[in-house]
């Protein structure tokens, strides 16, 4: 079993003319890699009608519905995060409740509000109540503001995680740019923060540091928007990890933090 905890798809509401092609490419590559489940989100309209990292409630409603429809088309391959914007609390909570009732398995927070902001508390509380992990977009060691997003770093995510010790949080794409070593030092003592290995970064030494700082029991395999780098990291892990640890990273850790019914055959 192999679970990609950080996948994305596109809906018809996208600025990309090739959205369907990209979705098909992910599924095709997933078959070749051996991905059992793509745990995915759709980030609103990806900028078509509202910014990718500040999606409007209307775009999120559409995106979450589109993802549920995609799951219905591929019930054996796709699982879904409910993507929400915490600036719109009532909408976010309603989306999470509706999504959970419809079988969505997690909550996705991008970069609409900093992770340690009190506005994230009701979202995290509801995720905990429903037994859903929260995947949070992270800029590894953000040193300044970046345009187009209100990016959080590991320090801010860990503040939120400390306020919600019974909720599992996923620190997004440790290979997604930025200083991953900074993040690993931060999350090391925070047991309810898991590290997803996705991102285009394939730095030599990064996986060794993930293992030494966080440990195989808190690492989750993922790809984000570069399946090739995800597969490369998996191939390297096959060389450096004993089989039981590799199984944890491939899927067992994911099976532990997502709802019990999320993955068949686990």
């Amino acid at each position, binding site marked *: 079993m192999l679970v990609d905890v950080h996948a994305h798809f596109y809906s018809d509401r996208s600025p990309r003319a090739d959205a369907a092609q*990209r*979705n098909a*490419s*992910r599924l*095709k*590559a997933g078959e*070749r*890699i051996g991905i059992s489940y793509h745990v995915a989100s759709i980030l609103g309209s990806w900028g078509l009608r509202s910014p990718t990292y500040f999606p409007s409630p209307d775009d999120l409603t559409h995106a979450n519905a589109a993802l549920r429809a995609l799951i219905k088309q591929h019930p054996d391959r796709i699982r879904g995060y409910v993507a929400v914007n915490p600036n719109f609390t009532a909408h976010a909570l309603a989306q999470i409740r509706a999504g959970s009732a419809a079988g969505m398995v997690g909550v996705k927070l991008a970069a609409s509000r900093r992770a340690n902001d009190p506005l994230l508390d009701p979202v995290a509380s509801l995720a905990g109540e429903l037994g859903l992990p929260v995947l949070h977009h992270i*800029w*590894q060691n953000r*040193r300044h503001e970046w345009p187009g997003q209100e990016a959080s770093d590991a320090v801010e995510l860990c503040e939120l995680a400390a306020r919600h010790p019974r909720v599992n949080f996923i620190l997004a794409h440790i290979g997604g*740019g*930025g*200083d*991953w*070593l900074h993040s690993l030092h931060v999350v090391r003592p925070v047991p309810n923060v898991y590290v997803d290995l996705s991102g*285009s*970064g*394939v*730095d*030599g*030494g990064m*996986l*060794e540091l993930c293992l030494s700082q966080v440990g195989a029991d808190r690492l989750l395999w993922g790809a984000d*928007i*570069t*399946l*090739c*780098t995800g*597969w*490369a*990291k998996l*191939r*390297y892990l096959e*060389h450096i990890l004993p089989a039981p640890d590799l199984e944890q990273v491939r899927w067992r850790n994911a099976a532990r933090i997502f709802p019990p019914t999320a993955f068949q055959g686990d």
Partner: protein
Amino acid sequence: MIDVNAFLGGYPWRRVPGTSAAGLLAAMDRTGIIEAWVSHLPAIFWRDPTEGNEWLYDTATREVRFRPVPCIQPGLANWERELTTAVDRRVPAVRVDPTVHGLDPAGQSMRRLAAACGEAGVPLMMAVRFEDGRQRHPNDRAPELPAAAVRALVRSSPRVRMLVTHADRGVVEEVHWSLTPEESSRIWWDICWIWGPPEDHLELLLDTIGVARFVLGTGMPLRLPETPIARLDLLDLPPAERAILEHGNAESLSGKPV
């Protein structure tokens, strides 16, 4: 497989495992790479990067699977001598990293070097970057190699052949489509930074630009060498085209019989 883009020695900006010759050979064995074109990584950042060349030649002499890619710094008075030595040693390429050396990447000294490499028949290797710009050390401020410099250099001399590493789709396309077919036929690109699915940049570039222009490069040990190989495994390439990418183009570029 031939990896045209590998390094030996430590990196000044962070700790990297596997930088010794033994470490690189282990990575090559793990991934099925038979031959690696290696540069001396620390020397790239020295005031005189050519001071690492003797060590590099010595190391490559002792390990047949390594082919040395020495540094040339055209802003130093010894650059012609270093180039002559490199040619005498039948290196597959020489490298220059102008932005790291503080040189104008398309300035007079770079144009002189490009022309001399063309006359000598040795490819000129240049890296667009070494690391993702978002993660670089706060004091690691050398600009990335701009596409404008690549096209200026290839236009500057009718015989220069260039091997550009660590380029992404945007750089490749900007350079390729800004050149005449004859000019672009003198540039080769490694695939270490060109994304696979679902964005499928590599598939697109192989379709639009063609397999003749691309070579296998990993950037190891700064980057996992599994990456470009995984990219190839995610393509539906006929075996003959894959062989061209894995070693055929590199052999042609370096003058080895295909």
